């Protein structure tokens, strides 16, 4: 780990195929800045991504990375971190990947509280399959598969995280580059599961949750007297359906990562050339 790491060291030479203007560019840049700012380098960083536009992120970044199957990025990230707690593990996903097919894993990853960060690019639509509603789409949102609106409530990912015992719950806006990078950095620095829901607009299929919409409505918690260590204050903000907040909404300062609580401090990669020296004791247990 060296101090002269710049965020561009996390950039690969692959050309992104995201649509021009996609919110994911800003989301990714913030992730790279946050990784560099926290003193990580590409060789000790592992980025896991799922499926969808967000899933492409591992290709555009330079680090150890895995692009897995739909909705299962979190378990992969947990496995990586458990097997080598010295790595910086960051999982990236979209609202479909994380709150639809992967919703079960999301809740359990939150309560398991492994020391990693999870950045969700929430554009409230399915982009790569060309414009169907997502779990965070509004109830009246008209798409190719919801011509008369979705007729169902959007999921509130922050509330899910809070109810599952989340220890770090934050939200950012990909176009507010400075604040977004800061918030992701705080998620990385948090000891435990650092969850950031990022408003990352889809310029092609979502004409409701646009850059302008977020710019006009977002309230930065830094400009309020919000106390992120106050659970009730956090709950109130999270359940406030009329506002879009940016910032760290809740943080448990006493959080300790699961792998540390399980006593894992070293990489599991090194093993002896043969069976352990005391292996015959395992056999003798069966006398």
């Amino acid at each position, binding site marked *: 780990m060296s101090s002269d790491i710049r965020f561009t060291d996390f950039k690969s030479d692959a050309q992104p195929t995201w649509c021009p203007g996609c919110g994911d560019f800003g989301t990714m840049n913030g992730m790279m800045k946050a990784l560099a700012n926290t003193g990580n380098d590409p060789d000790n960083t592992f980025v896991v991504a799922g499926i969808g536009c967000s899933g492409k992120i591992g290709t555009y970044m*330079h680090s150890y990375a895995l*692009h897995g*199957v739909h909705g*299962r990025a979190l378990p992969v990230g947990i496995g990586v971190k458990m097997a080598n707690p010295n790595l910086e593990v960051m999982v990236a996903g979209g609202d479909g990947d994380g709150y639809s097919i992967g919703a079960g894993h999301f809740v359990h990853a939150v309560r398991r509280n492994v020391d990693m960060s999870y950045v969700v690019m929430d554009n409230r639509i399915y982009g790569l399959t060309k414009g169907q509603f997502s779990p965070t789409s509004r109830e009246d949102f008209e798409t190719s598969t919801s011509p008369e609106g979705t007729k169902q409530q959007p999921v509130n990912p922050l509330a899910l995280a809070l109810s599952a015992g989340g220890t770090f719950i934050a939200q950012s806006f990909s176009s507010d580059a400075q604040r977004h990078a800061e918030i992701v950095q705080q998620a990385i620095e948090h000891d435990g599961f650092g969850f950031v829901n990022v408003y990352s607009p889809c310029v092609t299929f979502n004409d409701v949750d646009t850059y302008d919409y977020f710019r006009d409505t977002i309230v930065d918690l830094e400009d309020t007297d919000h106390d992120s260590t106050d659970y009730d204050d956090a709950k109130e903000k999270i359940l406030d359906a009329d506002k879009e907040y940016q910032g760290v909404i809740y943080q448990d300062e006493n959080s300790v990562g699961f792998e540390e609580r399980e006593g894992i401090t070293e990489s*599991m990669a090194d093993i002896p050339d043969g*069976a352990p020296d005391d292996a015959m004791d*395992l056999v003798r247990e069966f006398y």
Partner: protein
Amino acid sequence: MPDDLNWAIGGEAGDGIDSTGKIFAQALSRAGRHVFTSKDFASRIRGGYTAYKVRTAVDRVESVVDRLDILIALTERTVDENMDELHDDSVIIFDGERTMMSDFEAPGEMTGLDVPLKRLAEEAGGAIVRNIVALGAACEVAGFPIENLDEALEKRFGDKGSAIVDTNKQAARLGQEYVQDEYDLTTDYELETTDNDYVLLNGDEAIGMGAIAAGCRFYSGYPITPATDVMEYLTGRVDRYGGKVVQAEDELSAINMALGAARAGARSMTATSGPGIDLMTETFGLIAQTETPLVICDVMRSGPSTGMPTKQEQGDLNMTLYGGHGEIPRFVLAPTSVAECFHKTIEAFNLAEKYQTPVFLVSDLAMAVTEQTYEPEQFDMDAVEIERGRVVDEDDVEEWTNEKDQFTPHAATDDGVSPRTFPGVEGGAHMTTGLEHDELGRRTEEEEIRVEQVDKRQRKVETALEREDWSPREFGDSDSDNLVISWGSNEGAMLEAIDFLEEEGVDVRFLSCPYIFPREALAEEIREADEVIVVECNATGQWADVLEHDALERVKRINKYTGVRFKADELAERVKQELAGETAEVEAE
């Protein structure tokens, strides 16, 4: 007098049947006798018939037979359930003072020993030791020195203090003395003891022990019968070596966590049974496509769907051979005995890392719940070799980087095996993906690269075919034209069946297959033999289908799908019938 004895205790789940059976099995094992156990149980915690059976002899015992000599019946239903296996010389121990057994009379010529188990237990110190009273009575019937029980009781109850141990010892003696005083036994079983030291373990435990011996450091799984014992064995034990077991939220998560740990460099495994394998199937392709070494263990039970969770079957062969969309290079290993569960687990880890593929370790319920005695040397830890394959560290990472200093995790080598860096290795950072990719791991749809990568991955399998020993285990008369082939856990029953057949003048050559892949050599064997019979515990003959396809020749089939494993004498009879050209009726149990 018979030294090969079949003993059972049966009653309701929750009656302590398992622990009593295990104590007896351990006592026999410590007395230098071989033991082979089996269980009848239902998928419920309390109530319902359950039994623990122990077959014991001084010589090795490899299977169950259709005979029961001594039965401790805590309920009358226990007698009904086992009526087919009881014979005129059988002895039934029961408690006539219990309401449910008060009218009981031993059927036919059998000897019924009415022992007031509860009353004697209370005399010894508490009704809870009722089963131990019965065990003492059984020792008397079996001609097994009761002192041998003491050690097993100490092992079992030592943690609870000497008073508990003494109560149990006393209970056993009261049971023994009651039979001595009240009955003039006409049976004369006599269980000899020896100085041999054996260990007693089941297939799931052997898999867990093999995993630790092989350097497994990460296990994630979801509880499911009959694979859970693997997870329970590893929990706590793998920690001693710096590893960890994680109980995941579901099987999808379990296999993906194991995949993540494997990418981070840990030897990694998951185990499940049929319904769990279905869920994991999604990730099979990802493992193969990302070239991640992973051991996936399927301890089969009766399917389909939730089927019969506590019953035996070998129904998942097709699933492990073909499961997953697209074409997935893989290896499938099927241990043929409890000891082979240990050895094949170690081999599975080596194959997975040498060839960077998924390796399926296919066991089944019969081995999972069977406890068997072995000489400890069978689990020779000094002989364990760890082969990690083409792992690249800081020093030689450059050899595998391109002109732009990019590491090539999917380099198209001659043997198909690519270099592998663990995260943290400087200069080795790379992308890996389930998408088709180039040597760098980057997505591509270019025809040429697609073909190159598919060929590369397939080449690993061809390399393994040349470099590894895939021989089946051969038994019986090597000159015989009658060839019997089976896979997985049928080996023990077939080994004893060979002896039965020999007595009747029928010779067979037996190939027991722990490798379901590759199988060219087997096809050759089939073409050369006169009669070929494929034995398997399923209805459709999945292995027979594969072999017919390979050999382009028809084979005979013996299938059993009642939920109960083959018994040696039953199997001998069916082999005889097949060779004689008679079609055996499938017996429903």
